């Protein structure tokens, strides 16, 4: 039996000492995390990827001594899940797709807004009473940007003419080269338009049409290379893993084009789908005033230019002042987006011609039914 005398009686950290050391280190590290100026107001933002980044909020942050803290979601369902997971009042600003605003309202997550606070005069007539943003004549969300979904394709592999119909996805030479953005709503909506469900709308279909839609969709499965989340959608098109993607539009290809990728989007002859984003103010936020100021900023010409050219994904503008400002600041981009009265792809013109349909939740089926069909389609 040996007793190791050399080890006894020497100060060795005990459990308590280790905890003290840990606590001290934590205390030391905290000052390095806190910013050195007078504490700016924090705004908690819940949005699609990229809306809290400096290119959009930097100017506002500097001017109002504000710091944006953002939580990014992918898809309206994900957004709802995230809000439900946090204590009420966590999020001050919520960027939401239009069709989910009513659910935010029903679940009690957002505050009522005063239309007088926002430049409704500047907004195009078509968008003043945007369905979903109002309930019982009360305003709950303000439209700030939108975009079109159609056929996104690689310009070196597919001609614009071919891409002008959803049928292009079924072309035999594209087998294994088609990608899906992994969200049922835009995908099924697009195929619904191909099925001819333009009236009353691609999302308002009866049982026979729904069954037919499922059949058409299933017939596309052999062409599919994969189902991608946001990041995967970008990289699969970038790397030419896929040559065309269903369920997306310029919001993806516009970014890739900036990096020089040979891709483009087009609204096909069967029609396109409009996604619409709006800001709401979170209930119990405590920062309603500054949140309101930010929404006003985004709707101002300066803010509109920034949101049109958002680094994460570009968008079209709902305000006349925004159009003018973009034409002045970046005429090439205004041209590309069609935010000029004379343009062919002028979004308001397309809307008036009935070629664009708002994306919405399915009317005659439950959201669950669409989601479950999507799961089934994926595992085929």
């Amino acid at each position, binding site marked *: 039996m040996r007793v190791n005398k050399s080890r006894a009686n020497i100060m060795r950290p005990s459990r308590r000492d280790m905890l003290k050391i840990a606590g001290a280190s934590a205390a030391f590290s905290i000052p390095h*995390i806190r910013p050195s100026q007078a504490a700016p107001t924090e705004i908690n933002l819940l949005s699609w*990827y990229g809306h809290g980044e400096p290119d959009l909020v930097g100017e506002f942050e500097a001017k109002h001594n504000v710091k944006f803290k953002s939580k*990014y979601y992918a898809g309206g369902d994900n957004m709802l899940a995230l809000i439900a*997971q946090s204590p009420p009042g966590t999020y001050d600003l919520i960027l939401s797709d239009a069709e989910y605003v009513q659910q935010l309202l029903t679940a009690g997550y957002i505050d009522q807004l005063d239309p007088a606070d926002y430049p409704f005069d500047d907004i195009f007539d078509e968008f003043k009473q945007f369905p979903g943003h109002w309930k019982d004549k009360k305003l709950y969300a303000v439209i700030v940007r939108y975009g079109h979904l159609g056929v996104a394709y690689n310009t070196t592999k597919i001609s614009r003419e071919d891409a002008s119909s959803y049928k292009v996805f079924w072309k035999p030479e594209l087998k294994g080269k088609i990608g899906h953005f992994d969200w049922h709503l835009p995908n099924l909506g697009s195929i619904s338009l191909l099925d001819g469900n333009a009236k009353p709308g691609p999302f308002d279909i009866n049982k026979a049409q729904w069954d037919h839609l499922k059949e058409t969709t299933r017939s596309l499965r052999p062409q599919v290379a994969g189902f991608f989340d946001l*990041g995967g959608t970008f990289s699969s098109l970038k790397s030419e893993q896929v040559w065309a993607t269903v369920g997306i539009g310029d919001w993806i290809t516009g970014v890739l084009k900036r990096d020089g990728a040979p891709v483009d989007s087009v609204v096909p002859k069967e029609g396109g789908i409009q996604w619409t984003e709006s800001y709401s103010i979170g209930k119990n936020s405590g920062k309603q005033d500054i949140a309101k100021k930010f929404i006003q900023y985004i709707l101002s010409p300066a803010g509109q230019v920034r949101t049109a050219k958002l680094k994460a994904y570009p968008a079209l503008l709902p305000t006349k002042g925004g159009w003018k400002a973009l034409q002045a600041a970046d005429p090439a981009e205004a041209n590309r987006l069609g935010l000029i009265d004379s343009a062919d792809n002028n979004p308001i013109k397309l809307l008036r011609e009935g070629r664009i349909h708002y994306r919405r939740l399915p009317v005659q089926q439950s959201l669950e039914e669409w989601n479950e069909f999507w799961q089934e389609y994926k595992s085929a």
Partner: protein
Amino acid sequence: MTGPRLDTLWLKAYVGLALAFVFAPIAVALVFSFNSSRFPTLPLQSFTLEWYEDVASNPELISAFGRSALVALLVAALSTAIGFATAYTDYRFSFRGKGFFVALALLPPTIPSVIMGLAMLAWLSRLAISGTIAAIVVAHTVICIPFATAIIRLRLSEMDAGLELAAWNLGASPWTAVRTLVLPFARRSLLAAMALTAAVSFDEYAVAWFVSGLQKTVPVVVLEILTGNVDPRINAIGAIVFVTSMSLVIAAQILIGRSSQKSGTAE
């Protein structure tokens, strides 16, 4: 003793191949983090530090790194402390239900992290701490206790059982014996456990993604970038993360190696 030596060279080459496979992604991330092209394709373009500059000037990323470090530190301390208590219990005592006790200590790694994340999210929301740093620390500690326990237990099994007995015979209370004998003996393994659990926590992405809310750690930011729009920053972030965890793991291994007097085989 080991048979014909002709194919020994092939076998060693095979080990080399295995190591190459294992380190390939790390090397790729490191190399591309200095590549100026926005697309991660060959051939490489010019050498640049701009992605690192991007990362260094991004306040959100910096605070994420700080948060990850803080969480890792707290997790290391907590899980090593509890790990020691658990290892010591297993070493010193036998009691009814010991099997259940040991199972409780070693079970967490058998639960897939996605499931753990979901369960933690639901439970910690219930306890109203979801979305805070405390939530991440709590969840990670649960995951890391088995690692700490295993490392310390291994070291304790090398301790002469007579040591404590002698101390008691000489009049020391069992607490004193632990403080002056067992803890010093296990010192390096305690440090190794801290280093390793810090590494595990630093890299943990699934559970953190579920419970961190707005308090993002680095892996959560990486996940967001991967699911948002992959940009070249991710290689720079990855390189920094690799260097950090590799240093921690190397430190842990050295500590374990040095403290083990009787190791005939490797760790």
